[in-house]
């Protein structure tokens, strides 16, 4: 029993049509940065990112997708959504089966100097718009959690919370001559082509999305996530996703963390005041 798939314009829709109810998964391909996160966390391996004509394409297999919604909160740009009876709903997060992530960005508008637009100008995804004195609008959905705006603000008005920690290294000896595909796909513009015609990555601005590893034809990029910052909420779905994104060891450490937090809670609760 598979879902109905429609592709209208830049949107893929997978629909489970019942008689009066409806479950609908949508993927906005225009917003999608073709990173490797959703394809890794999907428990049914229903999502595939592939390279077609030197461009990244994303596909969802309607026979494998079960509309569980694991992918939705993980998408860094909110390109995925599941609607149950025309209302956005995620059963897993509702029942705390997946943890919340820290807030992407918060700007203390009171600290903004007059006529300052540095964050707006420098934001690589154009998520920030300065509307007026002390009036800053942020499109939190497409914000990539990179510290570009944070670094640009001399007044300390911006707090940005990344969620991935890890390492990235480009083995430029593997690069084909003149190839700059990774530069093109990086959403935070963290990779640039140097004057020596070699690409290099500014570690600080890498958000570990994995788009560059997807497109590199020579597998020249070593990108690994070691930790994921997250809030409360847990299930085996989370463990599975975490292991796919990072490593088994990281999952072990995450469990350890969690156990420690719980222990502290229990001690606090049992303290006689």
């Amino acid at each position, binding site marked *: 029993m598979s879902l109905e798939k429609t592709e209208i314009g830049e949107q893929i829709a997978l629909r*489970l049509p*019942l*008689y*009066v*109810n409806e479950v609908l998964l949508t993927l906005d391909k225009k917003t999608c940065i073709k990173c490797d996160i959703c394809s890794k966390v999907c428990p049914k391996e229903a999502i595939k990112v592939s390279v077609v004509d030197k461009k990244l394409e994303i596909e969802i297999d309607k026979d494998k997708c079960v509309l569980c919604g694991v992918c939705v909160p993980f998408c860094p740009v909110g390109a995925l959504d599941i609607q149950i009876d025309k209302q956005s709903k995620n059963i897993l997060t509702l029942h705390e*089966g997946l943890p919340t992530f820290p807030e992407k960005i918060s700007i203390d508008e009171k600290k903004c100097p007059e006529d300052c637009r540095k964050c707006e100008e420098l934001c690589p995804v154009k998520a920030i718009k300065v509307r007026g004195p002390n009036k800053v609008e942020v499109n939190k959905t497409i914000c990539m959690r990179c510290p570009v705006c944070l670094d640009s603000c001399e007044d300390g008005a911006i707090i940005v919370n990344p969620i991935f920690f890890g390492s990235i290294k480009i083995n430029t000896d593997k690069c084909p001559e003149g190839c700059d595909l990774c530069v093109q796909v990086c959403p935070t513009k963290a990779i640039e082509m140097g004057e020596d015609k070699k690409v290099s990555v500014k570690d600080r601005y890498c958000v570990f999305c994995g788009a560059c590893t997807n497109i590199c034809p020579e597998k020249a990029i070593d990108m690994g996530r070691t930790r994921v910052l997250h809030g409360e909420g847990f*299930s*085996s*779905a989370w463990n*599975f996703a975490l292991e796919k994104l990072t490593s088994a060891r990281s999952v072990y450490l995450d469990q350890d963390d969690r156990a420690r937090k719980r222990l502290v809670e229990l001690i606090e609760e049992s303290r006689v005041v």
Partner: protein
Amino acid sequence: MTGPDQQEKLRIGVFICHCGKNIGAVVDPAAVAEYAKTLPDVVFVIENLYTCAEPGQEEIRKAIKEHNLNRVVVASCSPKLHEPTFRRTLTEAGLNKYLFEMVNIREHCSWVHMREKEKATKKAMDLVRMGVAKARLLQPLEDITVPVKKEALVLGGGVAGCQAALDLADLGFKVNLVEKDPSIGGIMAQLDKTLPTMDCSICILGPKLVDVGKHENINLITNAELKSVDGFIGNFKVKVEVKPRYVDMTKCNGCGECVDVCPVILPNQYDMQLKPRKAIYCSFAQAVPLVYAIDKDKCIECGMCMDACDLNAINLDQEPQEINLEVGTVIVATGAEPFDATRKEEYGYGKLENVITSLEFERIICASGPTGGDLLRRDGGHAKKVGFVQCVGSRDEKCGNKYCSSYCCLATIKQAMLIKEHDPEAEIYIFYTDIRAFGKGYEDLYARGREEGLIFIRGRPSSIKENPKNKNPIIVVENTLTNELMEVEVDLAVLAIGLQPTEGARNVAQMLHIPIGADGFFIESHPKLKPVDTPVDGIYICGTSAQPRDIKDSVTTGSAAAARASIPMGAGKFSVEGITSVLVHPEKCTACAICTTKCPYGAIQVKEKGKTPAIIIEASCKGCGTCVADCPFKALDQRHFADEQIFAQIDAALEEDPEDKIISFNCNWCSYAGADLAGVSRFQYPTNVRIIRVMCSGRVSKEMIMRAFEKGAGMVLVAPCHPSDCHYISGNLHAKNRIDQLYKVLPSKGIDPRRLRLEYVSAAEGLVYQRLIKEMTEQLEEFKKQGIVKTPVKGG
């Protein structure tokens, strides 16, 4: 094995039956009787009007006593009808029942040669001569008695299976009820109301299901499938595989806390895919057992259900479990499937959103369904104008379902009346071919329907279109009573779908060795007199597995099957016919073990190849004779169908004008019955054929065929069951192999291979047999003209 004792002199009695005018009007019984008197060893001949009736039977008993008969030949109808009757008569008169031979001069003679009275009478004489020839060589035999375990297997937990299980359990027998779905209930559990009384279906079924679940004599095995069946009546060894439901049945209490937290939403089969369920689910509220199950294929193993379950009932590591059962009888209640309406492309089901099936309608109109019982369309609008299309997938040659599904006429009227109950202003059209109101109360509901203003239009719609503006279905039909072409636009079109055999039916049939008819449903032993038996002793069929039925007939046949099954189980024993294989010449047996490769029942065994002679396990021997025919050293023979006996029949058949004769070896289960059916149906064919009955075509040896040709037979026909339909599983395959080998050898013996035919004829193919004999007779005439079949020079 050969002939009577030296001391005993043969005293054969021959009883010629008129069968009223059935035989008497075509065959001259007096002439046949006169002829019988001339046969050696025949000491008593009499004609009867109806030999099977009590006076006729009394004649036989009297004759046996008064004339000291030691062999009895009755020339009348098919042994498949009355052989057991007459065998009982012999037993009552103190004679061994196997000293009886029946000659078929009705189905195989008077009924098929109605316009050739002289030739038919001559043929009847030949047949009597053949019967007496065999009777001379018959030996007394004893039946084998096997013990019967007082435990049964019921396959299928629909209403028929549940009824059968409850009846058997109430009788005191242990019952194992195996159901493939996680819950019992079947299709009846999906219905809203039953007809004609408009009872709430699940309300009347629910208590039955609970009774099944609670009964101390019923072992309910759900989410399980039949894997294999070995053995025979009284002692079936059954393997069942229980598929894991990943929920511990001893712990789950059906509370449903797991459902809310499961993130995977799927369509619910119980609601015909119209309502959602989760990956962990219970089909419906009244399920028995009330235990959840996980659709592991779709489950993402997030573990949310495990966290939510206070009773720790979820186990994602559950493995399939194999259960071994030993039962005395098996009742097949595997049901049927709704017709797949996408096969009727012209009705647009699956493409047009407001064309639904009657079973989907049943779920929609039901209060526990997707709309809470409101007659809504997919777009949420109320359906005020509804059109019902009858006979979808039934009475339809194009779909391959020629049969009528019986319940749909009244089911539609019931559904229409439900709509009227909800909405008296609704406009309802019923497009019918006939209205079959055969059951009790059916005609009343039909009359009420007409009073309520249901509009009946006689015509089979040719197609359903769609109004693009509002997605209304438009039903295109010719009103055959007014001869006008109509296009009726409705809010909702309901296709009254019939039933078709389940996907697994063939598999079950093969495991149990029970036959399937041309329509794909299981066949009963006799359509009138044995409606729930199968040709395999100890296995019974009921419910819609045998034919489309309404609930009442399903329940009736369920009880009937239980009653039939309780006969051998109650007696605790069962007699197996004594017509088994026997090692007559152990000195000839070289332990080559070829026989063991021919027996599908493991009934003949050679412990050490080349050393120990073959041993026959009589209780397992079904009496097909295949091992006998293939024994290269002629060490084996079959009781009651001995080589000598069959040779005697062949010789007797070909005593006069052999070149005109077609010797036809017909197997008891298929071609003999097929020839009977030709007789019952009065399909006429030429008189050249002389049928010799064997239990299985596998019994027909190369020697028998060569004997027929050596005695001058014009043609020889071996008529097995169709491949994969052999009552003894593989007898027909071995027969074919043997004959293929014989074809290669025939030319060197001066016999044109075209004179030997192997043609498959099933019990349902009376017409095929008729056409075959007509064709072969024509061919024989040609062969005689061309000198391929030589007419021996007469005289001199």
